[in-house]
């Protein structure tokens, strides 16, 4: 039974990709949010943020999914997602789905105001300036597009990483340029996507870092998948794994 407390209650929107492919990111998020002095719960009624429908022009399904998400999360103090892309969808795009439906639009706005991307929540909302994790080695950080441009996440992950003794950040060329994932884009236009990710993996390789970090699992699966296909020794993890010190398991795409 959950003990009642005066800690802020955070609903973890785990994101479909983390839920299905990389649960460790979810546990890392829980650990970090708890370290930031909050109580975490995971509503079981969540599925996906709805971006695949929304970005494919299917507003109806996107709205239905959004309603489901809002219902599941609107009673929390905060809604936190370990993804700039999904958090951006929840925070910046949900209200637009309800244009013309005043009651739902208000509800969506109230919900969106509580939504934060994980690292931004830790640093900007909870004022966290260091983490307790230990670690080491050279890392390079890719700024995922939605987190960077919709939510202004750039310095926060770097600052928290810098608080880990032994971690050396080696910036790649153009860390703010898209990796070519783009959700359904990467399967609709695989050749173009491939050209973009090849440019990205070259920049990653040139950075000389051993570990690639980012805040979005979609981008990470794309980049890690390409690195693996190229036979690169660079490993990839979600930044939350490193910040939480949960790096015992295999990196994304397995260990060679």
């Amino acid at each position, binding site marked *: 039974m959950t003990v009642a407390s005066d800690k802020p209650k955070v609903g973890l929107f785990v994101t479909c990709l983390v839920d299905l492919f990389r649960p460790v990111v979810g546990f890392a998020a829980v650990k970090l949010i708890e370290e930031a002095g909050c109580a975490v719960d995971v509503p079981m009624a969540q599925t996906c943020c709805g971006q*695949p429908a929304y970005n494919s022009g299917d507003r109806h399904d996107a709205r239905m*999914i959004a309603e489901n998400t809002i219902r599941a999360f609107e009673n929390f103090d905060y809604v936190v997602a370990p993804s700039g892309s999904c958090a951006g969808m929840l925070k910046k795009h949900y209200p637009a789905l309800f244009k013309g439906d005043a009651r739902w639009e208000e509800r969506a706005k109230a919900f969106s105001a509580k939504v934060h991307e994980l690292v931004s929540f830790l640093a900007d909302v909870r004022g966290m300036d260091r983490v307790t994790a230990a670690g080491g080695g050279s890392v390079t950080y890719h700024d995922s597009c939605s987190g960077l441009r919709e939510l202004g996440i750039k310095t926060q992950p770097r600052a928290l990483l810098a608080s880990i003794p032994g971690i050396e950040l080696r910036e790649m060329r153009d860390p703010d340029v898209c990796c070519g994932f783009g*959700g359904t884009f*990467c399967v609709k*236009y695989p050749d173009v996507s491939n050209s973009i990710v090849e440019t990205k993996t070259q920049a990653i390789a040139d950075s000389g870092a051993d570990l690639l970090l980012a805040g979005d699992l979609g981008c990470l699966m794309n980049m890690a998948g390409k690195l693996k296909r190229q036979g690169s020794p660079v490993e990839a993890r979600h930044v939350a794994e490193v910040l939480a010190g949960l790096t015992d398991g295999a990196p994304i795409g397995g260990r060679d």
Partner: protein
Amino acid sequence: MQITSPSFKQNARHALDDVQLQKALGNVRAGFIDKRQKAVDALPEFDALRDSARDIKNHTLENLDLYLEAYEQKVTASGGQVHWAETAADARSIVLDLCRTRGARTVTKGKSMITEEIALNDFLDASGIVPVETDLGEYIIQLRGEHPSHIIAPAVHVNQDQVEADFRRVHTHLPVDRDLTEPETLLDEARKVLRAKYFEADIGITGANFLVAETGSSIIVTNEGNGDLTQILPRIHVVIASIEKIVPTLNDAAQILRVLARSATGQDMSVYTTLSTGPRRPGDPDGPDEYHVILLDNGRSAMLGTEFQEMLRCIRCGACMNHCPVYHSIGGHAYGWVYPGPMGAVLTPALIGVEKGGHLPNASTFCGRCESVCPMKIPLPKMMRHWREKEFERGLNPATQRWGLGIWAFFARRPQLYALATSIVIPVLGALGKEKGRFSSLPFAGGWTKHRELPAPETRTFRQQWAQREALKQGGTA
């Protein structure tokens, strides 16, 4: 020009395989981005100017009819003539009529995307009138029988050795042993060849970056000076401009000029900003005897009042394509019509129809870099999404996509069913991929695994594991 946007995927494939093109595209990345950033960083008011520029255009669009009328009145008062054209064909026939009635045989042209949009060169050629492009980049691609691959750097897809080969092929009156190994010598040659053309031409045609309602002026913004020679040497100057080029006043133009060149080439100002008002005045020793403006609608009025109205703020600086990872990969021709890159992905479906231009707004990762650099703050990704909505509403996207999306949405809307399905599928996939931690190929994932490995899921979903953990906790405290 022929529209090849429907075969965007094949176009892109060819572009990716084109070694010369891929080499040239490296120049886009290197040439524009750093220069823009430097110019922007040097002007603390840049972002405030973007807001100002956006507001000016918004105001103008909301009063477009009134500003067009005011503009027309000033042009007429200064001795110029305004022609209204609803369609590309109307604009072309106005030009042809001017050529025929004035006995024009050759026209020189300043760089103008609107004349590309109305395919003026092919039309003039077919009508027995010789159009001569005078911008170096436009001249190069005219020699090559191509179209611009970039709205401000039309020949950005061409490498220097290709230019040399083209000049040798066409400029046969020059010594064969001449040295053309430097860009300077190539430019010199073009300068000399074209200098004669300005004097021969009967009509000079330019586009316009702005039309100023306050004064009836048309403004062109260039670096080479060809646009100016095009409009001051021939007897007749014809401006072709679409209706959204209007700005209210000279001061409004001054605001937008501050963001235009910085966004385009990283200059504070382009070399030549030229305001032209009417024909030569009494006592003027130079300048054209006639001044005509063709105001072209060609689909713009149909964008007003719709979710695409904001696109009419576009000032054609090219910053969106300069910063677009998709454009960097495939260049401009793959987009299959006049306007490439993010601005083309929004504008093209509006002008040629989403049935033909539908790939363009889909071929975007929504990375948002275009919007972040757009001097007019046009929400390009949002409008690409609107096109996807139009396609979806009309059932224009491929059946496989609709099916896939439909099945996924069916589950995503039903949390319990979704949980059940994923709790069955994920452990199976996890077990299959356990050894390597990834898949090199997988049924239904060919789009992904063609170029990259698919990381395998862990053994169970996060929610399965979380539920178990919570249950254990409760068991422990009970």
